[in-house]
């Protein structure tokens, strides 16, 4: 699966899709493959403030638990509630299934992230 060129990526295998001061955050195809069948996604409450690098939730497969880390600082303004009922959507559509939408408090955070080419080489 190709890594969308419009996204930025973290070394912890999250992607972030930034539009102005808002960003959708999800996990990469590589991450979902490593996890295996996702059965549970725990997400923060709307309104929570996140610092870049901070854990904002967890994702569990049948075998393993993995923390989710915020790629940027900001406030959680939306949470993908559909993942409660259908967590397996993360496996089938990792780059379409966002987990949270963050309002960036420091847009410069994005500059520190990897682009698609850099991330692709990281997980090669």
């Amino acid at each position, binding site marked *: 699966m190709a890594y969308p060129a419009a996204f930025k990526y973290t070394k912890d295998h999250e992607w972030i899709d930034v539009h102005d001061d808002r960003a959708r955050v999800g996990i990469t195809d590589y991450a979902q493959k490593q996890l*295996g*069948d996702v*059965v*549970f996604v725990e997400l923060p409450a709307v309104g929570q403030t996140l610092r870049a690098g901070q854990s904002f939730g*967890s994702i*569990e497969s*049948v*075998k393993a638990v993995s923390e989710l880390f915020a790629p940027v600082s900001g406030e959680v303004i939306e949470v993908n509630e559909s993942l409660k009922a259908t967590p397996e959507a993360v*496996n089938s559509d990792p780059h379409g299934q966002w987990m949270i939408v963050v309002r960036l408090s420091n847009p410069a955070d994005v500059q520190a992230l990897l682009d698609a080419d850099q991330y692709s080489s990281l997980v090669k």
Partner: protein
Amino acid sequence: MDQGAPPPKKTPLNARHRASGARMVAFGGWDMPLEYSGIVAEHLAVRERAGVFDVSHMGEIEIAGRDALKAIQRISSNDAARLEVGQAQYSGLLTPAGTFVDDLLVYRFAPQHFLLVVNASRIPVDYAHIASQIAGIGDAVAVDVSSRYALVAVQGPRSRDVLQTLTAVDLGALKYYWFAHGEVAGVRATISRTGYTGEIGYEVFVPPQSADRVWLAILEAGRGVELVPCGLGARDTLRLEAAMRLYGNDIDDHVTPLEADLEWIVGWEKDAFVGLDALRRQRTAGIDRKLIGFEVLDRAIARPGHQAYVGSNHVGTVTSGTQTPYLKKAIGMAYLRVECAAEGFEFEIDVRGRRARAIVVPLPFYRRGRRGQDLPADRPEPHPKELH
């Protein structure tokens, strides 16, 4: 990799797993397939159709000689005198303190010839324990024959249909926990109606050099029912739904069969076996903790090692836990203080810093034939303890 760690052992099917794109994992010193198509898909295939597993890492120890039964009776907690030739039995290999050296299956090949099937990671420990315990018992010798067997498990409601096309052995006549010798796909085999999934199924012992031929024949014969190759991941979730204990998680050398709720494998009427005196004392004194099944009531998954509480009181430890693919619930097993172990008792589990409510439920979580109309009509699978 650790400096000096031995390279992982490989089953005769290792190259096949790798060539087929299985995700591999280190397990008990072995390089084993974790999953092929995914744990959930494999789990559901076994509940609804059929799956095939490579379990060649399991160990085999033979005990033979004029006093072989006497030797088995000394080391095995269950009563092997009840076994007829052709029958198998679940049992425990215990320390003098009554705790588990291992759990195992005891197969009676001949009146004085037994095969023990033991856990991969315990083979050397088991063998040393057995050899020392039977040293003084007349004519009985124990031989580690693990390298002489590959073991392939075919499990699921369609497993009989699949395997029957490959063997002249009448599988319909083979009762649960019985076995027969014959051929599978033209290969000398021992077919055992046993498994670790809670489903109807068979375990097939074959010579290692023929394992790949048998594996491919089963895949080919299973094509019509969409049989799938399965890894250890699905094996673990399947066995947990069936509440079968996993050595190293649910039982080990710190717990006894009474604590593990396995009293049915204790041959109380036997004259003696290693651990019996300790178990008698524990029966008299009563146990402090007991293995129970639980369901998590809140949205959370309990995992092995998580701690159980009632308020601020610590009441136990989770030994197995996952979100199960078939029942679609977070379930698990835990040792709880006996006063907390009754069905319906509610407690809390610390899931990474957050308390999740859980309730004690009867085991097993899943029993074949009790759910779903998609299964072919057949008797519900009896629990092994109902056979003796």
